[in-house]
């Protein structure tokens, strides 16, 4: 049987979900027989090529995130999202209670320790949007919430996928924090 090709990316997130993925430890060795990894933050390849499973971590918080999510969605058969940020918007949601102006001025002026305190303005920088979970931008097939998802939850989801089922986490192992 051909290996299942997986590509991953992180959006607005802390990379904790990827770390939790690595925390699968010895289970990764078993998975390596069935999975092969394509584009990921580790390979640092910016454009996706067609794959079976796409995995996203993080919320959609700016135009760049939207683009990455759409690119991966177009290239994968099944899109799975990891973590509370991708499922619900997560901790980044806090930003939605303030305007972009308030956020940037707080970040670059009020609390900044660098002199000058100007908010950077460049066309190169992606414009901020409201923080949204991934499913408000592209269709998502399955969700693994958690901050971060525990290795147990990730392993359950991947195992279900490899068995040909869309995973829905059982109550006993599901958690949001």
């Amino acid at each position, binding site marked *: 049987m051909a290996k299942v090709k997986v590509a991953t990316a992180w959006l607005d997130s802390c990379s904790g979900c990827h770390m939790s993925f690595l925390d699968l430890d010895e289970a990764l060795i078993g998975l390596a027989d069935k999975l092969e990894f394509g584009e990921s933050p580790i390979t640092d390849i910016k454009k996706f090529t067609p794959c079976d499973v796409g995995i996203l971590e993080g919320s959609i918080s700016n135009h760049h995130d939207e683009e990455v999510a759409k690119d991966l969605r177009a290239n994968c058969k099944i899109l799975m*999202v990891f973590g*509370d940020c991708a*499922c*619900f*918007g*997560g*901790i980044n*949601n*806090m930003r*939605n*209670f303030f305007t972009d102006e308030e956020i940037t001025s707080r970040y670059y002026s009020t609390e900044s320790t660098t002199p000058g305190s100007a908010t950077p303005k460049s066309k190169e920088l992606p414009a901020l949007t409201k923080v949204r*979970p991934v*499913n*408000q931008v592209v269709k*998502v097939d*399955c*969700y*693994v*919430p958690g*901050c971060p998802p525990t290795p147990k939850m990730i392993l359950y989801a991947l195992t279900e996928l490899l068995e040909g089922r869309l995973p*829905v*986490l*059982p*109550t006993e192992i*599901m*958690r*949001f*924090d």
Partner: protein
Amino acid sequence: MQEITLTINGQSVKGKTGDTVLTICRANGIDVPTLCHLDGLSDVGACRLCVVEILSEKKPIPACNYPARDGLVIKTSTPQLERYRKQVIELLFAERNHFCMFCESSGDCELQKMAYRYQMDNDRFQSLFPKLKVDTLSKYLAIDHNRCILCGRCVRACKEIAALRTLDFSGRGGQTMVAADLNLPLGESSCTLCGSCLQACPTGAIINKASLYKGRSAECTSADTICQGCDIGCEIKVLIKDENLVKIETTDRTSARGALCNIGRFEQLSETRARITSSMIRNAKGKLENCSQDEALTAAAKKLAELGSNCGGLMSPRIPNETIAQFQKLITGTQKSKIIDTLDGKEYRTISAGIRQYANGGTNPEVDPDIEGILKADCILVVGADIDRTNPVIGNLVRRAVSYNQAKLIMVDANQDMLPLWSELWLKPAAGTEKVVINVLANMVISNNKSLAELKPELSRALSLNEADKVTAKTAIAEKDLQTAAKILSQSKNAFIIYGNKPAAQNDADLVTSLLNLTYLLQNGKGERLNIVFLKPGINSQGAWDSGAATKDIKTQQPRGLYLLLSDDIIDKDWLDWVKGIDYLIVQASYISPVVEKADVVLPSRIWDERGGSYVTAGKRSAKSNPVIQRYGLIPDEEILQRVAEKLIAIPSRS
């Protein structure tokens, strides 16, 4: 109450008329999810999670307020019902800020548990992100309206348990908010900080500032003991993590002692005084310094031997019976001193003198009925008691009686009407004339019901000297108000009198006698126990008084040395001034305080949650505390006393 039979999920189950469908389901182990239901509170059907299918009804019906009938056929779990329930949860999540990873209650939250149960792994509905206020100005409580699901449990707890009605809803529909009073910040409202709402809140909307970041309930071990904040002795559950007190909760919110109060729930959690963790002795330079326990005990015993019967013992009313017995053994037995008293001995002597005067040579009457009786009272007379400060749980009971038993509350207090929203009448006697007021009321009660005059003719004669018009001039209370009060008292069938120990009422044994007379008349001379409660300063005041340790005023006996068993209590300025005149002072205490700084020998004492023992609490009810936590490896108070006694006996030169 008639037995009824229902069919739930194809299973035949029994219940009683008057039960709701939910009650019967729960009693029979049939799981129905709920959020707005809380045992001990009324049901309002706010959350719609408990919807069930009832054969005779067209639509799904909330089980929590559907009265069960004989022959109902009910299904509690169908794919449609489960879909509805999941949708309720999804909509609740979308309504406000329900993002768990930055919530203090994550892990303890009932909404979160429901989301897990219904495997809600994404936001089907876009979150609304309303920006609502967070009220953190109250001393111990914070309300984060962003986390509120409007289940109304706090509102009902405030109304039904604390009977305060501080919290209620404001606004309509999607704009509904929980509000304190007329939308005041909680800290400025009528809230008494009993924390009933806190324990009722299923989410992170009401937060305990004294427990913040100390750990989740789910990670704590729990232990039962009793609160030692006042003489009621409420049963509490203490949650502990890493040898830290995290939360104090009630075990049964519906019981008379189940509401808890600011002292029981919060003050004991936020202790800031510095602890005494080692024995201390005054050195040659006159400074207190740490020493081994043996050194301290030896020094104390040596001095005690020197002082002999010239050394008195003074103890806090917070310590349990076992320690009192050990202390008495040391002072009156080993030390052969007759000088022993409690910090609240004065109250005892006033009350017991009043009781003796009332008994007039006969047997003393039974007083202090169980405080639960307040709930059944139809008239409550409060004299000289600042209930909401000293015994807030009794305040709740009084309010509950007024709200739910139509009890009429009469306050007799010179300075303030403690429960102004609840009292029917506030009598404001001139200083020291409380007993005159009570006597004239008693006289009026007799004139309203002449047959009472025959109960105790000599009493009636004595009381008849109190004529209303003369009393008015003396007490500054209008005759009309006295008439109204007497009318309320005369009409009551189950009157309850609460006597406190506010300064104005102190030291007046005659007032105690007058109150006992009035109670006797109100009870028509019937009943074994007089419905009068004497609020006492400490949890074990009654136990200490019963042990005979407070019969004689220590101040009049002028001991040269003093063994002060203070434990975690505090002493007031009067005592401190008196103690300053003592030559040699041994203090067994838990916290650094001015009196400790005066001591020659200091022995460390355990605090309330570290000690076990028995107490006689309000209503002469015996209660037990358990040592639920241990700190600094301190030994129990009675063991220290035992060791002092042993050292003392071993001194050969002892006369």
